[in-house]
């Protein structure tokens, strides 16, 4: 019985996680036509990022093989760029513009308020995994400063109070018992 159990547990280690085979097959398909030394690495990373909204770490060895390099160098490349990420984004990602035009118009106050309201520090995920604050660079939409972005929408110019109201709007309505209190 003991031998049998260990045999089973070994099997379960070898068996790939659900979806992993499909994921690797899809990544292989996405990068199949790309070549080393042909300015294709960024293209590959963008394609994977576009498909999965992050770079699944499992795709790193595939990228390394495709580009005649090592997984460490691929990891280093991904890690270098701030728009590429190795973990899936949370359900609600609030992007906070870090640019100087926003800064001069009190984006710091908005940041502090959002951190407190969403329960996560900048570039981190809240403890329930639902909210994420992300620092983004200025893209020159400074006529909206100070601004935040949410699901591709630009929201600004914002007062700190409006930012707090926005963050509260992302949260589910309080349960009936709390409301009747």
């Amino acid at each position, binding site marked *: 019985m003991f031998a049998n159990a260990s045999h089973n547990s070994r099997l379960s280690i070898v068996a790939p996680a659900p979806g992993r085979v499909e994921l690797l097959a899809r990544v292989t398909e996405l990068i199949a036509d790309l070549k080393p030394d042909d300015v294709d690495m960024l293209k590959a990373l963008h394609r994977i990022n576009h498909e999965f909204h992050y770079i699944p770490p499992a795709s790193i060895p595939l990228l390394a093989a495709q580009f005649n390099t090592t997984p460490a160098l691929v990891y280093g490349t991904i890690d270098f760029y701030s728009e590429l990420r190795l973990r899936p984004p949370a359900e609600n990602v609030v992007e906070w513009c870090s640019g*100087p035009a926003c800064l001069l118009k009190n984006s710091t106050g908005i940041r502090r308020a959002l951190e407190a309201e969403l329960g996560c520090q900048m570039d981190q995920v809240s403890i329930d995994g639902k909210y994420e604050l992300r620092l983004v660079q200025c893209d020159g939409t400074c006529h909206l400063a100070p601004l935040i972005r949410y699901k591709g929408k630009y929201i600004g110019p914002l007062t700190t109070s409006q930012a707090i109201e926005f963050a509260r709007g992302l949260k589910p309505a309080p349960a009936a018992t709390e409301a009747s209190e």
Partner: protein
Amino acid sequence: MASYADLRKAADAAWAPIADPKRALIKVGVATCSRVLGAEEALVAIREGVRSRKIEADVMMTGCNGLCYAEPLVEVRLPGQPGVLHQQVTPDRAGALLDAVAAGSAAGPGALAVLGTGSMGDVPPISSLPFWRGQLRRLMANCGVTDPENMDHYIANGGYEGLDKALKMDGEAITKELLASGLWGRGGAAFPTGRKWDFLRTSQRHPKYVICNADEGDPGAFVNRNIMESDPHLLLEGVIIAGVATAADRAFIYIRDEYPLPVARMEKAIEDAYAAGLAGKNILGSGTGFEVEVVRGAGSYVCGDETGLLSSLEDRRGMPKIKPPYPAEAGAFAKPSNINNVESYANAPLVLRNGAEWWGSVGTEKNKGTKMFSLSGQIRRVGVLEVPLGTSTREVVMEMGGGPPEGRTLKAIQPGGPLSGIVPASEVDIPLEPEYYRERGSLMGGGGLVILDDTNCVIDLCIYFEWFAEDESCGRCTTCFAGTRRMVEILRRIASGRGREADIELIKLLAQLSTNANCFHGQGAPTSVMTMLRWFQDELMEHVLRKRCPTRACAGLVRYEVLHQSDRLPLAEAICPTAAVVKDERGMYRIDQERCVKCGACREQAPYAIAVVDEFGAQPN
């Protein structure tokens, strides 16, 4: 293979109905700045409205003419009349605009200016707008006029004429023409473009690469974005001319990831150019071949450094390389390469089309031509404009941009990115020329002017720049990645009231050490702090010695206090994200300093009851 004359003829035919419309023409500006305000939806709404209401009108898309503060902009043009520019045409205002057009009037409510010389009713001509007056629009001539996704519009306005001329000249003649014009690199280094191209031209090794640095990473700068999304063919033509002049094989246009629309529009432009035989093998039947492709970055400031960009192209981390060898000898993949800024390439077609003499007829003796600038920060009119070099900074910032908002005064200008330092308001009369900025310890850079007013703390801004330099450091040189971190620590300490006099010497030492960094990212990192020491020492010493922030922006030196009870305080209590506004048993409100994160929301709700207080008392409201 179609010749340039054939292309021009077809393009003229396509442009004719727009140049001289036979029925109403509505142009909707769609660019990054207007898209975020719903310009795309407005375009759809106007198209839909024209169709459903059977209005006799054509609707087309155009780029951004630089008036970001008035977006989304729509131009209405009736036959035989100049166009009228309407501001802030959000989707819900499309109906009102169409009402006016249906009634046969171009100047409905929301009309901003007439795109002509005379006024129309009470709508003034565009030349009377402060933002427009004083501009000399050469690079931006097509911005907001043509459809950026339509190559015919570009050709009909003289596009690709420069390339046609270049194909008939030999490489040396082209670089000589550029050198004669006096064009220097617009990215910040101000190196003569003609000479730079000559390095690549004289190199005999192949393949050779032409690289366009469109990684406009400087926060607060968006001039290159405007060219790429409003007139992508101008840049493309410049890049192809560079390829022809230097006998290069391939071009890479490296665009930052934060610019999705410019990427899309450049790709469309390249596709159209290939289809028309303006790029690819055998350009316009001349036998010269040149490939162009767009490379999309992935979010790294240091890839805007030319050698960092090269590393990024080579499928690696975008770490700047050690020079020499210079890119002209060993650039991308160790092959000869030429790297220029977007604006440098975009000027080349104008030089070739109109001649070096015409091009150099504006500007100053040393600095010829025009330069685009973007205005942002504490300024009334945020936008992109183009002026001759040598225009005074005051004219651009205070007159065209309108200066800081009502009741505030200009404090400083931060030109050209986080590595370029700060110039105080007292120096605002200097001309926009690199030499004058360099004399003041600063750099003119790529053209992003960020304006500070008297509510902004310079220390706070310096912390941001040093943090940015640290965050974006590639990690090669200790003086850069550790030096900037140390600088941030010192500045944060000063901003939180624990500054020491000895810190000034520490900062100077760090700045001295930073000159040993390999690339300009590390070398330029302490510029903002050094200019702060030079121009704003009083403000710094106020933080260090008296533990006081004159603008009360440094959170570590202030606290929020309830000055007196007010009926607005329940609102403050409700908005506080950390429940720091508390009511005691007597019903009196106070602020729990342990909980307060100093976001300032409560003060927005109860501005007269809550004050920002420091050791020297409350700020008067």
